[in-house]
């Protein structure tokens, strides 16, 4: 390469940086006095005190030096004096990638604590966007971004899968309340509320959808869920891709307009709330002619107006609350969740620090999708783990799906033994069913009507306790269960027994779950067998989904509880009716 010449990609990064610069960014690029206040705010620094490369000021300098060399006159005239340096090679881009994606969750705690008003997260997000524009990004970021661009949601939930999930949740709701009106309306015109969700709810946690539906039904709300534009999350916030941010926000807004909805209510997701309510109008360049609010506010209003009644004694655990960075720090949304908590739980214990000063769950900024940085993420999570432990609470509540996953990972890694839940789950549990709604008392199900009767399920796990637990839960629901304790046995039994579904552990001695999964998908005789991965190593998710075969039908993290297991197994088996199978 000619000295001072840039690679094609580096050239494009610098060219685009020039177009991105605005007053806010330049203020943050020139404002730093290296006072060190930011280092005390960052959980990465606190957990790695001997590694200066985690300091927000250091990380910002890696972006700042490119700015100075190319756009600031001081860096052009005497670069050695102001530490200006160009970015030249593709290797330079890769190094920058590991900093902006791997060493920061864009939580903005340092931004809030900077006396000079430097918003490092803003710089970091810009740098991420510049790298993404030339295809330099962690593979997980690419996977999720492409899913959201093309399929329309972050988790690649196909249109049919989404509608079918809402249908079977509706069937359950109707059965529960014995009322044909107790259903999830789809694309209803002129509704008061259009409810948009996180695709994680469809994929892994459909109970949060039915809990919300139960609350809307009991409040007598005129509501609907959209068939398109239903994903209120926005990976553009994490990847720095403003185009994606605008496109996703527009899909949501356009659908609400088309349905003539009055209020767009967002399920509990921190980055979705910030993206759709605060940033989306800027990215899309269009105003929003309707109200946008968090479902936390909606639930609180229902209780205050007497539209639903709650009994907090139903939630007797000790609970603490984790403020999502995007809700609390970026949107100032932290008192309302506490007001609601006070109404639905008996024992609330504050976490310190809290509200806008809370520490990140460590899974923010898309970190959960970047498995290559998992070890450093979990190491830095010791700050969060200590904070959680100090509360003495048995469960942590959060209004963010990303935080649910981040906290679950921290709790598992540091063996804290806490549960993670959301306000919608607690409110639905605390709600008092009015007498006018007939709710069936327990009706024993006849043996022949057990939900999984007639299904043959192969349970694969090398840990005897887990094998026994999964088998017992599935057998109790009528399934015929066969067991395998290793990969070889699993493959042989799949061919021999042709099960309807396999629950598959990944980490096993000998032929591991990944090998077994690919072998199943590559064998035409058994390729269509439904597979639900159940693993204690969520970082292996990427390896499974990147295999050149059809993806698994479900994916659950250990420890898995009975309800989650059964919900997901039944969803995979596409059972629309809660009793028996078609």
């Amino acid at each position, binding site marked *: 390469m000619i000295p001072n010449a840039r690679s*094609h*990609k580096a050239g*494009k990064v610098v060219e685009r940086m020039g177009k991105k610069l605005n007053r806010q960014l330049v203020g943050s690029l020139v404002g730093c006095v290296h006072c060190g206040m930011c280092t005390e705010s960052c959980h990465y620094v606190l957990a790695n005190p001997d590694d200066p490369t985690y300091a927000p000021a250091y990380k910002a300098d890696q972006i700042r030096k490119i700015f100075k060399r190319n756009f600031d006159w001081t860096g052009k005239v005497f670069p050695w004096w102001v530490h200006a340096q160009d970015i030249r090679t593709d290797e330079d881009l890769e190094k920058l990638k590991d900093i902006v994606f791997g060493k920061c969750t864009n939580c903005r705690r340092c931004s809030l604590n900077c006396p000079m008003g430097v918003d490092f997260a803003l710089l970091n997000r810009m740098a991420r966007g510049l790298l993404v*524009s*030339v*295809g330099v990004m962690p593979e997980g970021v*690419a*996977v*999720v*971004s*492409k*899913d959201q*661009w*093309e*399929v*329309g949601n972050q988790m*690649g939930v*196909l*249109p*049919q899968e989404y509608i079918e999930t809402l249908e079977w949740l509706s069937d359950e709701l109707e059965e529960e309340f014995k009322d044909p009106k107790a259903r999830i309306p789809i694309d209803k015109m002129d509704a008061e509320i259009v409810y948009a969700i996180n695709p994680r709810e469809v994929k892994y946690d459909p109970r949060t959808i039915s809990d919300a539906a139960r609350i809307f039904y009991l409040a007598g709300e005129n509501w609907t869920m959209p068939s*398109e*534009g239903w994903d209120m999350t926005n990976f553009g916030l994490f990847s720095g891709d403003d*185009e*994606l941010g605008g*496109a996703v926000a*527009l*899909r949501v807004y*356009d659908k609400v307009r088309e349905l003539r909805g009055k209020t767009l209510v967002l399920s509990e997701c921190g980055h979705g709330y910030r993206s759709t309510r605060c940033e989306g109008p800027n990215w899309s360049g269009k105003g929003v002619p309707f109200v946008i609010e968090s479902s936390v506010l909606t639930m609180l209003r229902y209780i205050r107006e007497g539209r639903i009644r709650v009994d907090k004694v139903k939630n007797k655990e000790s609970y603490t609350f984790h403020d999502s960075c995007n809700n609390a720090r970026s949107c100032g949304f932290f008192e309302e969740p506490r007001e609601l908590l006070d109404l639905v739980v008996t024992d609330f214990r504050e976490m310190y620090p809290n509200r806008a000063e809370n520490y990140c769950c460590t899974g923010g900024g898309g970190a959960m999708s970047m498995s290559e940085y998992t070890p450093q993420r979990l190491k830095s999570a010791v700050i969060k783990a200590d904070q959680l432990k100090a509360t003495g609470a048995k469960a942590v509540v959060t209004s963010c799906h990303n935080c649910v996953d981040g906290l679950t990972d921290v709790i598992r890694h540091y063996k804290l033994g806490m549960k993670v839940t959301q306000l919608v789950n607690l409110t639905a549990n605390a709600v008092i069913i009015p007498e006018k709604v007939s709710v069936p008392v327990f009706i024993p199900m006849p043996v022949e009507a057990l939900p999984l009767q007639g299904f043959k399920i192969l349970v694969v796990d090398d840990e005897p306790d887990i094998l026994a637990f999964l088998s017992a839960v599935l057998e109790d629901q009528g399934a015929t269960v066969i067991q395998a304790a290793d990969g070889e046995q699993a493959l042989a039994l799949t061919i021999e027994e042709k099960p309807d579904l396999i629950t598959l552990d990944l980490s096993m001695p000998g032929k591991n779950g990944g090998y077994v999964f690919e072998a199943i*998908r*590559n064998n*035409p005789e058994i*390729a*269509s067998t439904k597979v639900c991965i159940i693993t204690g190593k969520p970082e292996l998710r990427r390896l499974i*989904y*990147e295999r*050149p*075969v*059809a*993806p698994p039908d479900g994916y659950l993290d250990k420890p898995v509880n009975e309800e989650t297991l059964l919900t997901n197994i039944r969803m995979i088996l596409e059972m629309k009716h809660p009793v028996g199978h078609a």
Partner: protein
Amino acid sequence: MLNEFRVNEKTIRLMVGFITDIGDMDGMVYYARPDLTLGSGFGTAISTQGGPKVQEELKKTGSAKITEVVVTGGGNLQAKYILHAIGPRFQEEDSEEKLRATTLNTLRKAEEHKLQKIVFPAMGSGFYGIPLEVSARVTLGAVREYLEKAVEPKEVVFCLRDSRELKVFQEHLQKMK
């Protein structure tokens, strides 16, 4: 706005929808990777709805270069064939010219396989970063140019994901009048 354009008894049509759900198509175009791994996005839909056969066929080819097109069966999809078009990505050099070549190669493959109706996405826009305006102008232009001389395909559909994409394609279709 214009959603349909006639070229020598053949049709270019615009619609909003989900590309793997479009029935009555002989071929579906997938903006593919050089390593021919289906990956995420529409690749997820092809893997899930089409079954493992598509990726198995691609494995036999291995890889392809930018502007090349690999044809496989549609597996369990409604479209009989998938045209895996390896287009330019992420601001690479000569993106416009490569996108035009990719589109023309796709149409040539469709004609070789005697496909009457094929459906394109907004080629390269979105994740791969080709500006939507460039994608619409270049691909619509290449399709028109090809259909003026070709026997097949008889109908080329652009299945777009939302009104934002549709609007830009409509504007460029209007300019072709």
